[in-house]
């Protein structure tokens, strides 16, 4: 399965996200869906950089593959401190401009935009799995009809 491992640093974000985008393109997603996949990956990576390695440096790996249910799976693995990349409370969407806070926004976007997400700690590793349904022929046909 294709895998990219790089230092978990902001300087490598563009390359890490480029890798996922390339894999998603090869799996037949349209450009809108690719943006969602890219966005959820960015949010997950930024959280790894900030929270899994708060003081030390380390690597992050991205694996992309199709699972047996035909879903496109992005798995993000780090060797940092235990950190559940999905465990944030949702932002208060009803707050007005002055009161609105931005904490937890990235995780909220992950939960809303990925079809499936799961965190697990395995040994010394944090593993976040994001799953995306691949559009079927009928979905694509329907999208073509509704968006000529």
């Amino acid at each position, binding site marked *: 399965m294709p895998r990219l491992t790089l230092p978990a640093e*902001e300087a490598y*974000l*563009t390359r890490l996200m480029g890798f996922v985008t390339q894999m998603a393109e090869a799996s037949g997603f349209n*450009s*809108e869906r690719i*943006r*969602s996949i*890219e*966005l959820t990956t*960015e*949010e997950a990576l*930024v959280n790894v950089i900030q929270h899994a390695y708060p003081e030390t440096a380390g690597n992050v790996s991205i694996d992309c593959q199709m699972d047996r249910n035909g879903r496109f799976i992005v798995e993000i693995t780090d060797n940092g401190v235990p950190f559940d990349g999905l465990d944030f409370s949702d*932002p208060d*969407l*009803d*707050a*007005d*401009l*002055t009161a*609105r806070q*931005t904490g937890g*926004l*990235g995780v*909220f*976007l992950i939960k*809303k*935009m990925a079809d499936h997400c799961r965190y697990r700690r395995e040994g010394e590793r944090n593993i976040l799995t994001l799953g995306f349904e691949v559009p079927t022929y009928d979905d694509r046909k329907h999208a073509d009809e509704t968006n000529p």
Partner: protein
Amino acid sequence: MSMEIVKNGEQDNCVLVAVKGRIDAVTAPEFDKQVGEWVDADTSDFIVDLSELDYISSAGLRSILGVAKRLKENDRALTLCSLKDTVGEVFDISGFSTIIPIFDSVEAALKER
């Protein structure tokens, strides 16, 4: 393309800005710096044209919210216009569409804001 920010002058006491490309964790600091300077150098409202913005993540939303809050503190306003569908979706999901006025075009933003 990463990000390009252009200031398109001023109209009806409103600074017109266009952001192209991406506002993500990599480019957001540059957005904060550039737009922050323009906000400080002026007393007008801001209209930001996002018709050529292809991608925004939570880092970008945070930057937009920062500008909106900063302007509001001085009784000024941020208005956005011409969001692409994919960008609009992120604004909708995050609830930002309800706290920041969004219009279909710069003209509509100038007229109706």
